[in-house]
């Protein structure tokens, strides 16, 4: 299935782009996707969001439409 992968702030530097379409299986986890597509990015330094909500790195993405790589936030 095709999923939109988003990356923000320094995660975009690590991924090499801010957005790309990826192919993955429903049983694949965000951790496995990150290791496959951006092995230089350390999941310990990022959070992941699935369809706009914080998610666990080890929960399969299921029917997700959008996965986002969330580095430490710094609004305000």
């Amino acid at each position, binding site marked *: 299935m095709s999923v939109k992968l988003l990356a923000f702030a320094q995660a975009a530097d690590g991924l090499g782009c801010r957005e790309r379409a990826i192919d993955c299986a429903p049983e694949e986890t965000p951790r496995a996707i990150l290791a496959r597509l951006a092995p230089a990015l350390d999941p310990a330094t990022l959070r992941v969001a699935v369809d*706009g909500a914080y998610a666990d790195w080890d929960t399969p993405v299921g029917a997700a439409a959008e996965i986002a790589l969330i580095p430490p*936030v710094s609004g*305000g």
Partner: protein
Amino acid sequence: MEKHIAFTESAIVVPALALPSREIGACVEFSGIVRETEHDRALAGLHYEAYEPMATRELARIFDELHAAHPCAAVVFIHRLGWVPVGEASLFVRVLAAHRGEALRFLAAAIDRMKADVPIWKSVAART
């Protein structure tokens, strides 16, 4: 509780005060201003980006949670995106409540929660 959450690429315009009822006794406002010095570096400004749909949803969730602990009547939240020069506001928050205690506590907690969980980022260099 009324919640108004907005992001803008333009300078923040403080909205006119609109009281949702005649029981409002406190209006607390906060503006976050971009400082010239950060980590001993002189800056011309900061660049902000957000994952807007998620940020809006997270803020609404946080405001609802805080409302349970500090009941307030309304919150207005405006965050600027893109380039913000030194001396201009990157953030405006207004909280309306019956009493100042709830409004002040809600405001302080809302900003703390935003800085911990809401997907907004600042950087010293513009990203494209």
